[in-house]
């Protein structure tokens, strides 16, 4: 009846996951009860859960990423403490638990923090920057988000029911095969990624179509803000790479569930297929994450330097070059696995070549700042911090791209330090820069600068204190994923790293305090004009938060830095005849399809993990029925009358006029 699920699945004998899971459940219940008692549930259902508004979905993505960031960060703290004390001792985490923690940390940070964070920002910003009313497929957008949330739910469920994978974040076979991992850990891993992978694919298709087909009038390709270009490149990579992940995990699951022989040691299976396929997805994935971050830095640097982006066209070229070359370097992840010197050399050279367009970008940002009137706000600090940190990470990357060097450093702590250096220094700094930069657009008030800067400095210093020691330990021969060790020279570095971890924890505290303080002081931080930073692209041309239809009148773009020009023109003409003719606007109706679909997907995923076959069929039928019901409805749009549009828009125009005349008088 319940497949493999019994009471023994709940880890009563392991206090750490049990307590952690218990705390999470109590916190969730408390939030739920508070929502219900306060009567917020109908509002949440109507305005958020069923929303197909790209801005709301973007905010929910970022919220999901932030919550999962706390979970992934807790795992990191546990690991650092373990390695600091596990010198010639077992530490406090038994091996099977430690292995789950580092697997969960990697899986969560990539799939459920970095991915939803950048997808959320792209969702929120790209339609605004393109001057359009929504993404190409609003309801699918909601489906994509909720499927991602389903994946996150399943990963967290493994904390209290059963176990998570002990195989590392990419679950290499044969270790992840049924023979060596008979438990449900790998199944939790694979099914949560399969389900959230569908969500990511949907998001990718949606964003590619939006950028290529839904630009406002005059928004030629070479007038798009840089963030739109990097979104396009990143979404193209999602569309091209995520199907590979789906296929690879499907093969692994077939091996595990039906006794197939893709990656087994018997009957002619070949694990190198898995290695090649998973990294043919895995390397583009890195660029899926970091390209949007590059876009964010481009926006931030140009806005806060008060200059157009230097070398816009070279930036576009560099972005698209990275997009293509990222598919030609995957083998550098396993130089040591016997491809031979010729193949290794080719992939080594390709890996070094990809550093060139990245270098182009760095110079472009520097030249954008050069001669500019720079304002060192929090987003700008993140950007400058990124440039310094990412260069170090990039240089160590070029170092390990040399096959002979890689033979020594492969799977060492040096590698761990390298990819944290690029992912924290690149993606995370970018995500935080974008978060602070676009927060006023999403919520209508700015974030507190003092706490934001404190968060930046703690992260910046904490990052170096944590990860430079890992470089050193790697050079001293320490391999990754060690539950304990007996080499005395590694110990001091592990202790320094745990101090760095403490500083990083303070940074997270600063972020939380920043949010609380800003919400409390929101009236004094209010952004009345919709353009708090003196921005250059179209998202600043509408109010903060924007109305559901984004723009009362679709903008007509005449050049790069569209909004900058509009402002210049408006200053000249003093809004002389700014009485536009408003028209009715058709907007997509909200729909519970995404939520209901994800509900059935959760049931199906859970049932698949525990081999509860009747429940699998139930979930499948439910998901299919949801789509048929969705397809059956007759009215998927509603009309906002011109009078309402006019009323909403005039208030904002008034605020803007005040701003322009103020600026004009100064």
């Amino acid at each position, binding site marked *: 009846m319940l497949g493999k699920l019994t009471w023994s699945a709940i880890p009563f004998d392991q206090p750490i996951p049990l307590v952690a899971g218990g705390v999470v459940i109590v916190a969730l219940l408390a939030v739920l009860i508070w929502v219900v008692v306060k009567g917020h549930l109908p509002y949440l259902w109507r305005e958020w859960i069923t929303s197909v508004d790209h801005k709301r979905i973007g905010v929910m993505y970022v919220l999901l990423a932030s919550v999962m960031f706390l979970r992934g960060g807790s795992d990191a703290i546990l690991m650092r403490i373990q390695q600091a004390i596990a010198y010639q001792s077992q530490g406090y985490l038994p091996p099977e638990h430690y292995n789950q923690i580092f697997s969960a940390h990697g899986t969560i940070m990539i799939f459920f923090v970095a991915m939803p964070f950048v997808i959320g920002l792209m969702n929120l910003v790209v339609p605004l920057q393109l001057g359009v009313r929504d993404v190409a497929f609003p309801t699918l957008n909601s489906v994509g988000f909720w499927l991602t949330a389903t994946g996150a739910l399943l990963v967290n469920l493994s904390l209290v029911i059963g176990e998570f994978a002990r195989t590392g974040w990419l679950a290499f076979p044969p270790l992840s095969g049924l023979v060596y991992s008979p438990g449900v850990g790998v199944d939790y891993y694979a099914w949560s990624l399969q389900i959230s992978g569908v969500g990511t694919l949907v998001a990718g298709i949606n964003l590619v*179509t939006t950028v290529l087909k839904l630009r406002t009038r005059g928004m030629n390709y070479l007038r798009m803000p840089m963030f739109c270009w990097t979104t396009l490149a990143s979404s193209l990579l999602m569309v091209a790479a995520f199907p590979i992940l789906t296929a690879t995990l499907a093969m692994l699951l077939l091996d595990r569930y039906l006794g197939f022989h893709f990656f087994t040691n018997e009957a002619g299976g070949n694990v190198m*297929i898995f290695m090649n396929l998973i990294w043919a997805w895995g390397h583009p994935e890195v660029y899926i994450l970091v390209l949007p971050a590059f876009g964010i830095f481009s926006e931030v640097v140009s806005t806060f330097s008060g200059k157009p982006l230097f070398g816009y066209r070279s930036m576009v070229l560099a972005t698209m070059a990275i997009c293509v070359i990222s598919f030609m370097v995957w083998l550098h992840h396993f130089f040591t696995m016997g491809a031979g010197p010729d193949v290794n050399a080719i992939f080594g050279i390709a890996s070094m070549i990809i550093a060139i367009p990245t270098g182009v970008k760095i110079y472009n940002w520097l030249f954008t700042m050069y001669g500019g009137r720079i304002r060192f706000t929090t987003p700008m600090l993140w950007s400058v911090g990124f440039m310094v940190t990412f260069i170090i990470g990039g240089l160590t990357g070029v170092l390990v791209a040399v096959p002979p060097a890689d033979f020594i450093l492969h799977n060492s702590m040096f590698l761990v330090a390298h990819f944290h250096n690029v992912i924290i220094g690149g993606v995370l700094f970018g995500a935080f820069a974008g978060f602070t930069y676009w927060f006023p657009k999403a919520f209508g008030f700015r974030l507190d600068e003092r706490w934001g800067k404190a968060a930046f400095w703690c992260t910046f210093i904490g990052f170096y204190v944590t990860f430079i020691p890992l470089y050193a330990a790697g050079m001293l021969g320490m391999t990754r994923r060690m539950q304990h060790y007996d080499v005395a020279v590694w110990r001091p570095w592990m202790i320094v790293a745990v101090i760095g971890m403490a500083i990083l924890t303070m940074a997270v505290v600063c972020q939380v305090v920043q949010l609380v303080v800003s919400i409390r002081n929101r009236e004094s931080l209010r952004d009345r004009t919709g353009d708090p930073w003196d921005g250059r692209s179209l998202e600043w041309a509408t109010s903060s938060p924007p109305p559901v239809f984004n723009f009362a009148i679709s903008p007509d773009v005449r050049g790069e830095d569209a909004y900058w020009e509009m402002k210049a023109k408006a200053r000249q003409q003093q809004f002389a005849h700014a009485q536009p003719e408003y028209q009715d606007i058709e907007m997509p109706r909200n729909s519970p399809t995404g939520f209901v679909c994800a509900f059935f997907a959760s049931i199906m995923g859970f049932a698949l993990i525990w081999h509860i076959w009747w429940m699998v069929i139930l979930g499948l039928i439910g998901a299919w029925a949801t789509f048929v019901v969705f397809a059956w409805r007759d009215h998927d749009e509603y009309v906002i009358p011109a009078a309402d549009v006019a009323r909403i828009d005039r208030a904002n125009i008034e605020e803007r006029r005040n701003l322009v005349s103020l600026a004009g008088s100064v």
Partner: protein
Amino acid sequence: MAIAATAGHGHGHGDPHHIGLVIEHPGPAPKRVVTGFGFWIFLLSDIVMFSCFFAAYAVLLGQTADGPKGAELFDQRNVAIETVCLLLSSFTCGMASIAADVRNRLWFYLAMAATGVLGLIFLALEFREFAALVARGAGPTRSAFLTAFFTLVGCHGLHVTAGILWLLTMMAQVFAKGFRADIMRRLLCFALFWHALDIIWVAVFSVVYLLGSTP
């Protein structure tokens, strides 16, 4: 949809890179274009997924673990009939699209029904082939080669199954709602999907059954 071409001097004033002639982007594309385009992107991603299974098949082709090889297993006549069914169904699917374009319900239902029946015959033949292989001990767990074979061909079969479910849903939608604009967009996507399955089958036929039966 007119593309306004204006002399760069006046219109493209803010564009520092303009070279005399600026083609103004006309604004968001119509819904039909957007939907079709998005679905094309999906199909491309689906083809990427298939390419992984093709790659696995190519690598594992020789890994028969002392079991039967493709040449001993594949029945070319059966595969030929399957191919004819699918190619014909692509033709009837095209007929259905034309019937929908001219709003002819009778021909639409006839052509869709023919498409569905041909698809079902294809599935039945494939099922029979699979069952026969399993019965003679050449199931997917026998060797890595058969694992890759069953996965690749079965994945295509699953797509055809989903296609038939979609086909029935579309017939029901046209029956209940007629040739509305949104229904027409879905029909466009369905037709794209069905033709894409054909293209993938051509690759399956060539790579799996023709190349795979060389002794």
